[in-house]
């Protein structure tokens, strides 16, 4: 099996605050890895580093065999292959849903407008958004906006998708529709690295769960194992708090 993503000793500090303290992680092709951990444990920063939005201080990140943190790498070319979806959707408010989705393909991949639109409409249909193609983002619910954001990333045909707490800003009744989209992606074989607070979702979808604590992966393993019988006291403590908050049934 080829490795889709490999992180070796990735460190990142903001000033004196060390956010990532040496992350080692390997993700296989078609694998779905969920990152869990308290707010501030470094999940989002890790994803932003993989997408080269945040430059790392040391270590290496390798995507499909190519070291993307090497000197002189064209960051725009790398970002094309990695889709990222943010907590706050970040759709372009001055563009229709359709244009949001076709902007990348037409301007970056140089796909013709008609081909890009056909592909975008196909994707929107697949995720139940076909009737929203001509709408502007502010006319959509949060769940719909987040699904458009996922479609926008998919339209670039990425090798790898990074999802950064994509349901955290949503009203509870809108979470399910977005999670369903992600399940659909997992079924289609997309390699994904997902930062999430939705533990039962992580248990369903992940091949592996990594628990981040203070900028390091403290513990990792198959979902059932890690969630039912965590080895580390810190992991147990975190999961107990999640269970107490009613976010995970045991």
């Amino acid at each position, binding site marked *: 099996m080829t490795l889709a993503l490999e992180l070796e000793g990735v460190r990142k500090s903001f000033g004196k605050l060390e956010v990532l303290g040496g992350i080692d992680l390997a993700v296989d092709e078609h694998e779905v890895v969920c990152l869990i951990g308290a707010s501030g444990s470094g999940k989002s920063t890790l994803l932003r580093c993989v*997408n080269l939005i945040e430059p790392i201080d040391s270590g290496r990140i390798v995507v499909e065999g190519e070291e993307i943190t090497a000197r002189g790498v064209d960051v725009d070319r790398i*970002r094309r292959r*990695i889709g990222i979806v943010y907590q706050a959707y*970040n759709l372009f408010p001055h563009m229709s849903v359709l244009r949001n989705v076709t902007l990348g393909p037409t301007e970056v991949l140089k796909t013709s407008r008609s081909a890009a639109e056909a592909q975008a409409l196909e994707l929107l249909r697949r995720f139940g958004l076909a009737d929203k193609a001509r709408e502007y983002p502010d006319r959509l619910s949060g769940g719909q906006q987040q699904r458009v954001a996922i479609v*926008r990333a998919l339209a670039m045909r990425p090798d790898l998708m990074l999802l950064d707490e994509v349901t955290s800003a949503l009203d509870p009744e809108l979470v399910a529709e977005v999670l369903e989209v992600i399940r659909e992606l997992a079924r289609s074989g997309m390699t994904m690295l997902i930062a999430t607070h939705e533990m039962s979702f992580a248990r369903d979808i992940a091949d592996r769960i990594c628990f981040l604590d203070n900028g390091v992966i403290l513990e990792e393993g198959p979902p059932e194992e890690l969630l039912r019988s965590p080895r580390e006291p810190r992991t147990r403590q975190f999961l107990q708090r999640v269970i107490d908050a009613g976010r995970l049934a045991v």
Partner: protein
Amino acid sequence: MAGGQGERSGPEVAGSRASRILDVRPGQGGRSIAIAVVSTAFFFGLLTLVVVTSPGWAEVRQAFFSGEQFRESFPDILDAFWLNVKIFLIAETVILVTALLIAVLRSLPGPVFFPLRVLGIAYTDLFRGIPTILVIYILGFGAPALQLHGLPTSPFFWGVVSLVLVYSAYVAEVYRAGIESVHQSQEAAARSLGLSRFQSLRFVILPQAVRRVVPPLLNDFIGLQKDTALVALIGPVEAFRQSQIEVAGSFNYTPYLVTALLFVLLTIPLARLTDWLIARDRRRSLAGRPA
């Protein structure tokens, strides 16, 4: 439970406040209009009375409000006024482009672009600081004397250049405020799609920035329209210059009033358009956010 209660009472409070401001209680519309009419009539009546009963009114009326002078000078001044229109149409077009360039220069990040940023800052500081009238004098009399190859020496040309230099500095700052008002997560979203920095600026940042600054931009253009009269100081016979000529020939000041009237007629549509755009944006931003 406390949170739930707050949510319930929220809309009621907002609703009662809105109706108080709009004063939409039935049967009151007619009465407010009547009050507005009476108070307006009273105010302007009083103002007219003060002016008309002043000791010097007879002379002022003769000097400034002569119907005969008005009819006589109007065609020539209107003719000359087209030069003002020409000046600001040319200047506005050029300003829109140069100011955008300067604003983009000032917004470039990273140490590589430091010299360009400094240049942008120096430019805006300099031309916002010097009075327009001085720029016009210095360029209007100085630049032609240089006998630069390939550049016109006409005062019209250098007058327009002066206005472009001064107003581009103001408009660049307006653009820059717009660029900085677009949240950086928008650029992050664009860059993570693989768009280059320039493409992000072109497709994502600038369209949003420009839309937001249209009202203040038009406001600057209203100022520019008036300042076209300053170009008269270096020679071209535009409306103000023409009215001076008329005044000099008749010893009557009515032509100034004609010119003032023409300028006001020109700026009012732009001022109303600005108000309308601001009101529309406010309606949109209220409508776009579901509570």
